[in-house]
């Protein structure tokens, strides 16, 4: 068999494959149109990252400036600090919030008290609806140095009150923990939905074989939601440079800028409010590039240990 006929054969096979799947392609028409209009046209507009964008000249008419917007960002006085803070918060949130959501989901699933479990599930879901403005209010009630409940307790125990919200050491923990508090129940939903997919006959079998509860969790429950866990972690890695704009914008104040300013808050001040949209878009591209690298790398890793893959 020579090369040509192999190519031809595989080509024919491909054509046949495509033909067999034509109904699927038909289903894709609308979503693809959607993607082209609402996702790819904006990306095409993203060329303003390389331009000095002038609204009157439009996207096409604006002057090319090469990489000037990117170098403005890289050479910014605060660049290293921004990158460090952003990565710190993203990874910490990934390491704290995701595991917490998983543990919560498993605990809710395993609990032998269905009513109690349901109550906890509903309660943990609620904080997601509190906007950060309100959460800031709650944090102030709890943590204010003057009359916060936590500081009242610290003072009662003879300790020195801590300025949680304006102290550069305490502040990062407040950010991470308040995010975990607000989002753990919400994040658990996806895992709970996944747990519902576990084949209950597996448990029956385990029970017959005398497996302990912990063994069941370890050998059945967790492995069966592993694909979802990988998926969630991979997707979060893809947007690793989004460290939570809304939260930070509400929580940060001048005394903690050095540990609170993240890329997105900087872009908001320096790009969006200062009318430098090329700069803002350039940073968006940079974030995307880093996210893509991480995602491709992590995807390879995950594929080695599991059959989950994003691509």
């Amino acid at each position: 068999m020579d090369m040509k006929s192999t190519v031809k054969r595989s080509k024919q096979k491909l054509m046949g494959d495509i033909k067999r799947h034509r109904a699927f392609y038909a289903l894709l028409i609308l979503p693809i149109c959607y993607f082209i209009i609402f996702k790819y046209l904006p990306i095409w507009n993203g060329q303003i990252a390389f331009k000095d964008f002038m609204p009157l000249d439009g996207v096409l008419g604006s002057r090319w400036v090469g990489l000037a917007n990117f170098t403005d960002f890289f050479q910014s006085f605060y660049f290293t600090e921004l990158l460090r803070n952003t990565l710190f918060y993203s990874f910490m949130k990934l390491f704290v919030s995701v595991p917490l959501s998983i543990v919560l989901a498993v605990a809710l699933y395993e609990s032998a008290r269905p009513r109690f479990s349901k109550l906890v599930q509903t309660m943990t879901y609620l904080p997601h609806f509190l906007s950060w403005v309100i959460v800031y209010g709650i944090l102030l009630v709890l943590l204010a140095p003057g009359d916060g409940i936590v500081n009242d307790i610290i003072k009662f125990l003879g300790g020195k009150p801590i300025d949680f919200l304006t102290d550069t050491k305490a502040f990062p923990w407040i950010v991470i923990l308040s995010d975990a508090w607000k989002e753990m129940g919400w994040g658990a939903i996806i895992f709970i939905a996944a747990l519902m997919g576990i084949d209950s006959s597996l448990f029956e079998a385990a029970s017959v074989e005398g497996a302990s509860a912990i063994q069941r969790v370890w050998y059945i429950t967790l492995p069966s939601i592993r694909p979802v866990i990988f998926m969630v972690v991979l997707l979060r890695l893809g947007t690793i440079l989004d460290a939570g704009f809304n939260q930070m914008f509400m929580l940060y104040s001048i005394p903690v800028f050095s540990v609170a300013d993240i890329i997105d808050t900087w872009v908001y001040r320096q790009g969006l409010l200062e009318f430098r949209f090329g700069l803002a878009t350039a940073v968006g591209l940079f974030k995307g590039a880093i996210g893509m690298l991480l995602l491709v790398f992590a995807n390879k890793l995950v594929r080695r240990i599991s059959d989950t893959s994003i691509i």
Partner: protein
Amino acid sequence: MKAAVLKKIALILALALMAVPVFAAGQADKSGSTQAAGPVSIELWYGAAITEAGPPPQDWAVLQLIKEKLNIDLKLSALPSNESDQDVKINAAAAANALPDLFMVRRDPWLNLIRVGLVAPVDELYAMMPTRSSVQYDADSKVFTTINGKSYGLASPGSIAKNEGMLIRKDWLDKLGLKVPVTTDEYLAVMRAFTFNDPDGNGKADTYGYGAFIEINNFEEGLGRRMDPFMGAFGVAGTWNMTAANAGLNVRNPAYYDALAYVKQMMDEKIIDPNWLSYKKDDFRAAWKQGRFGIMREQNAAFGAESNYAPFDKNFPKGEWIVIDAPKGPKGHQSVGVYTQAFRIYAVSTKAAAAGKGPAIARLLEWMSSDEGYYLLGWGQKGVNYALDANGVPTPNGLPDPEQAWTKPAAQVFTQLRNMVYYNGQIELLSRYPTYTTAVSGKTMSALTIMRDMQKRPWTAAIGSDALPPPNADLKRFYEQGVLEFLTGKRELTKANWTAWVQDFDRLGGKEWESAGIAKAKESGYLK
């Protein structure tokens, strides 16, 4: 079978494509109708007077009146209620060249809009609205909006100058047998007593000398407005020194170091409410109503207007705040802070000007300043939302339905545009700040008398300092963060460290910022 699938999909596609125009329809036929010979359509983005109350109703009689009388189809949209949201909305619309015809805009984004050519000069409009120009746009207002020889916006008077003051709890002073403090040292002594000597007599150490929060804007950089009385004691209130002799940035003045050292002492001695770094405006205002501190800088109405004072009155019927002078520093400086002439800019988009809407906009604004427009937008309908007292001052008293008074929630929607007609005239002040008797303690109060008192105190003139170029965002952060870090102890406040920090500030663009500011101030004739 397969044909059926395709048919179904085609049907779904068709339905979906039909849905888009249905949703977009509102937009489509609007642009169609403006071309017709009918009324001129003007889209106005206004700053709501009472942001938490809703917008005026769709069938608002005023809109109908404007259509019939002025042949203008006015389309209203309230801007978001906080400044950065407003800026984002306006900047985004600007990026798409989709700015409305007439819109309120803060000065910083407005400068950018001029740079990219999206707002039109309005010099010709002034002559088309004689009445309005005489009450709203004086020479200062025009200087405020003039860039490179052309006026790019209509600047109406904003809040009244010098409407804030130092307030102290007189009942606390009396209880502790203290005199009203005058010098910075006496202030320290009183603040200590307020903190440690239980001025409210509840047996708990839950009071502080001074209360504040961080409130920064371009002309009150650094520690912001609420700390300015202490900066003023050292002659460095506000961002800029606007005297011809010493024009420049206060932060580059050696006296700034002494002022910081004073504030740091307040922090170290814990006689300033430690929450001041985390408070937002609401929290600060809730705190003084709960008696947390005994000295503050507050705005006249936020302190003394009936609804704002009521909770304090209920909590502390025996409590009493009095207006006092700001502390006098070692070299005799004394100032509540800086004052400028505050303006609200309304800009006309280039697009509107090109479409020839200028005269219609002038017609609309001129009407707003006519007697009819002034009262209608400022207070609502006569006999329904307001009545006139013997002196011709609008009053909420004596209306058939008191709930419809313009001061009541139900009718506040009708005065959302009032900031476009108010010019701080005597009638406005009398009606907005009436004399009243407090509900619990029966005091006679008036935010107007309080304001008159506040205005008499020593202030620092800094007219035009809000029109000087703003710092770059990174420099702004470096400035604010650095100054605070010296206070919190993250940086040690020594002469050497301070000098080094100022050098870094200069390197980051502080020097250029100062030069640009001085140049602009000279050009506009702001230096006195």
